[in-house]
């Protein structure tokens, strides 16, 4: 147990800077320098008419490209955090905001991430003409849409489920809204926030590698990064470079996991609600390493605390002044805020209505009903593939997951590994697989199922492992006692127990599968392009088309895919969730 109770009555040991702080300091400096270097690379000029910036396939450039990709991920993550806090807080506190924000996020979550890419690119390139920054912004925003919704939902959920007695204590001691947020609501949500952030961040790799090679105005633009490096390596047939790129990607994911998420998870353990120590607390060597640095304590005592105290004093003085003023001004302020809110709402609605009208007009003018029917038909074909992936992954990985989950020590190693596989952007490796397809003359209509499964099956495995680990000991012992084995054991204990977890995994996998179809149903190897019949291929094709017909078709295709996801969500997944909650809840 990590005890922090001071030695009874002993004097404080004098802590001072050590060699660890030196390393940290150097590392921070290095980080700042590389951010500056990568950041400057974002604002390079480019000419739309000439050829794209060439991406070198030289292995020595890999660290630079990895850095660029990472920078995009983290900037997008920063925006995701800001959105999470604002939207989650607003939805938790305000009924009207909740009725708008939650359905909005639900729909956005169901939309294919890569459709956004084209929209963003056209918008930002017009915003920053002649500058790479526009394309960068588009890429970053695409990553944002891949990361944010899960985090925002999770934060909202934990805000709403903070224990009532802690809220009562805050009310009783008259904490202001800001104090309540910082002292109660954020710490209470911290653990789930960090878990969700870890999962969501991983979901961004897919978006970032896919968004590094785009077609704008009919021209191929490539952003410097690991994704485009890989595409180039495959395109020029440089197998060694391709292999190095994959290894680099794995290393980057591993490094982010070990240096950022694991330490954060260990730190977040202190925010868990249970008032007992957990049996298997998370461990991180990096966290232990950082704890020995005096730098953090120094910052805490010399920088953070005085600043907070100063801010508090200023606030107190402001409050004292305000207490002398008549109460009427408060009401005026409230009216002003309400009017601003209403105006903003009206403005938002107006924009939305304009957008909807414009989109409808575009579709009406360029797409015929027959075309729409064709798109819907393609959607059903893709639906079949998504179902096939889910079913196959369930059949194959459930036994494996249960096997791993029933052996805790193996599970401890396996779970983080599977998590990493789930984050790895398999679309980087698609060209290689497509090459195999070409060699062995595999029909893409079946082959793309494999491509889709490569990225999304891990969610099912991961959740089934968690479910198997969560089977209560006493139920398992009772089963053993009564001699249950084989199919009766599965039917009576294992399948019902893991059912809720399986639903989470399958729902995530299905959602990821829809996203993956855009990259999987049409893929290239060298100069050969394999195409399957499906909605993903359709969307991918029309994204690269210029002109009004193209954008209208894109809107149509995206809308159809989003509709499929939302409808299946409501009809299938929500009902299964409710059923699982009702029948299989282990309490």
């Amino acid at each position, binding site marked *: *147990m990590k*005890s*922090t*109770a*001071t030695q*009874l*009555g002993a004097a404080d040991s004098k802590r001072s800077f050590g060699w660890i702080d030196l390393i940290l300091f150097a590392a921070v400096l290095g980080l700042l320098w590389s951010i500056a270097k990568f950041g400057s690379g974002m604002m390079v000029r480019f000419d739309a008419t000439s050829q794209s910036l060439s991406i070198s396939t030289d292995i020595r450039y890999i660290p630079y490209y990895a850095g660029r990709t990472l920078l995009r991920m983290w900037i997008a993550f920063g925006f995701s955090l800001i959105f999470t806090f604002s939207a989650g807080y607003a939805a938790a506190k305000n009924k009207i905001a909740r009725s708008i924000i939650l359905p909005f996020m639900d729909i956005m979550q169901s939309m294919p991430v890569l459709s956004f890419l084209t929209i963003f690119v056209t918008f930002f390139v017009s915003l920053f003409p002649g500058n790479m920054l526009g394309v960068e912004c588009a890429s970053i925003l695409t990553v944002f849409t891949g990361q944010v919704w899960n985090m925002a939902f999770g934060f909202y959920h934990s805000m709403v489920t903070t224990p009532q*007695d*802690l809220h*009562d*204590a*805050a*009310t*009783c*001691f*008259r*904490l*202001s809204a800001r*104090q309540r947020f910082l*002292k*109660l609501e954020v*710490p209470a949500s*911290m653990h789930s926030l960090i878990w969700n952030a870890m999962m969501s961040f991983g979901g961004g790799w897919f978006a970032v590698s896919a968004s590094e090679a785009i077609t704008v105005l009919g021209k191929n633009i490539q952003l410097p990064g690991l994704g485009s490096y890989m595409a180039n390596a495959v395109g020029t047939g440089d197998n060694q470079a391709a292999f190095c790129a994959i290894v680099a990607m794995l290393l980057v994911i591993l490094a982010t996991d070990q240096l950022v998420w694991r330490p954060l998870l260990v730190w977040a353990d*202190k*925010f*868990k*609600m*249970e*008032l*007992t*120590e957990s049996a298997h607390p998370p461990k991180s060597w990096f966290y232990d390493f950082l704890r020995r640095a005096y730098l953090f304590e120094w910052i805490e005592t010399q920088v953070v605390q005085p600043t907070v*105290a100063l801010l*508090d*004093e200023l606030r*107190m003085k402001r*409050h*004292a002044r305000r207490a002398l003023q008549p109460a009427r001004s408060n009401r005026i302020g409230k009216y002003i805020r309400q009017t601003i809110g209403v105006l903003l709402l009206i403005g938002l609605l107006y924009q939305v209505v304009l957008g909807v009208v414009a989109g409808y007009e575009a579709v009406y003018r360029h797409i015929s009903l027959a075309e729409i029917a064709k798109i819907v038909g393609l959607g059903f074909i893709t639906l079949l593939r998504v179902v096939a992936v889910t079913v196959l992954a369930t059949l194959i990985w459930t036994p494996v997951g249960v096997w791993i989950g029933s052996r805790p020590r193996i599970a401890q190693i396996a779970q983080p590994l599977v998590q990493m596989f789930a984050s790895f952007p398999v679309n980087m490796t698609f060209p290689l697989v497509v090459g195999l397809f070409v060699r062995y003359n595999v029909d893409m209509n079946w082959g793309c199922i494999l491509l889709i499964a490569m990225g999304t099956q891990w969610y099912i495995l991961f959740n089934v492992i968690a479910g198997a680990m969560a089977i209560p000991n006493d139920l398992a012992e009772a089963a053993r006692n009564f001699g249950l084995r084989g199919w009766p054991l599965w039917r009576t204990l294992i399948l019902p127990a893991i059912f809720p977890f399986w639903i989470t995994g399958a729902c995530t996998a299905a959602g990821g599968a829809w996203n993956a179809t855009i990259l999987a149903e049409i893929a290239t190897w060298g100069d050969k392009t394999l195409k399957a019949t499906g909605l993903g291929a359709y969307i991918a094709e029309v994204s690269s088309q210029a002109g009004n017909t193209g954008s209208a078709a894109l809107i149509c295709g995206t809308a159809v895919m989003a509709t499929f996801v939302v409808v299946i969500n409501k009809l299938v997944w929500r009902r299964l969730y409710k059923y699982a909650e*009702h*029948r299989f809840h282990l309490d």
Partner: protein
Amino acid sequence: METATVETPRPTATARRTIVELCHISKMFTVAGGRELKVLDDIDLAIQEGELLALLGQSGSGKSTLLRCLAGLTEPTSGRVLVYDKVHEGINPHASIVFQTFALYPWLTVQQNVEVGLMAKPLSRAEKEAAVNKAIDLIGLDNYHDAYPREISGGMRQRVGIARALVSEPQILCLDEAFSALDVLTAENLRSEVVTLWQQQATSLKSIFMVTHNIEEAVEMATRICILFPHPGRLGLVLDNHLPYPRNPNDPGFQQLMKVIHQTITMQALPDIPPEPPAISGRPVSRARSRMESIPCVPVGQILGLLSILEDNPDLVDIYDLANEIGKDFGETIALVKAAEILELVDTPKDEVRFTELGKKFIIADNDTRQKIFAEQVQKLRLFHIILAYLEVQDEIDEETVLKDISVALPYENPEKILQTMIAWGRYAGLMDYDAATNMVTRPEKPEAELEETKTE
């Protein structure tokens, strides 16, 4: 509302200010399904400086709700709260609460948790630190400044809660069943410390308002005891307690006060009503149950256990002794006895428990006969007629309809708890069943006729 005095010397009354006064407080809650539940009914209560007021009531009597109205956490549906004789809305600045679940923030150390009590006050950092240290010192947590709540025991966590409540120098300390979650020894220790703290007047603390269901705790600590009758919550009795501190439970004055309280609660829960003339025709209605009366929410197993204990200890007659024997607190024991009484298995003259003839038959019978007797008795209860009437006509009835009928018949009870108990009793009696998948109350699986048939085959 009666005021009873006990034969102990009364100190001379001095003019004392009223810190908080609750005038005609009523509180309604909306239960699931849109029904309104009246939890508090027209309560008048005043807390003066220098007193320790205990509010005694069973779980569900609304005492926590009353405390929250007093502290300003909840707005009453009707009535006013007066703070120092002025009408007040919102948080009561002179009151601080100590919670039953401690309500400590797990990510803050002891020192930081106590600081939370001062967050709204305009004090400088040095002043805050001094106040926090003083409070921690007062409550005896001196070396635990940097400990996290998960590292310290339950008793110490509650001390942190008390320190946090005291650090802002309130006039009233509100204890919301503050000792219920602690083990007996720790609770005993903490109780005497709190009383000492109040008496010493080392802080600005003038009065304490505590809600509890533990009668001994109330008599041990309070200078004035208010008993709250449940369903709906209303003030039943106010007692002055002038016993000198420290109080000894074996003291005759203490025992006398306990007896008065026991009798009051028992008389309210198990009134001695003369036997009514039997109903002329139709279904037999049990004696004194011709009105629709609520059933205590007690599982069948506990009723059977009670009968078993009574059988094993024939000289165990007093309800209070019974409570001590089975280790439950007084209110829970009363509920248990009431359940057995409603089923006519025991009789409760005054505050005693005795078997009826039927009860004696029940206790020596085998399982099948017991079920039969139980079923017969349950069918006499008018409350069960609600469900049985439906089941005569149809195979099943949905839960919502039954809940609505129950809430109309018993407006002051929680319909869901009542229904749960009814289903439990009904299942044991073989009169009804419940399908959790469809939320329907159904006829029992094997009606008795079929059972007879299979037996004769």
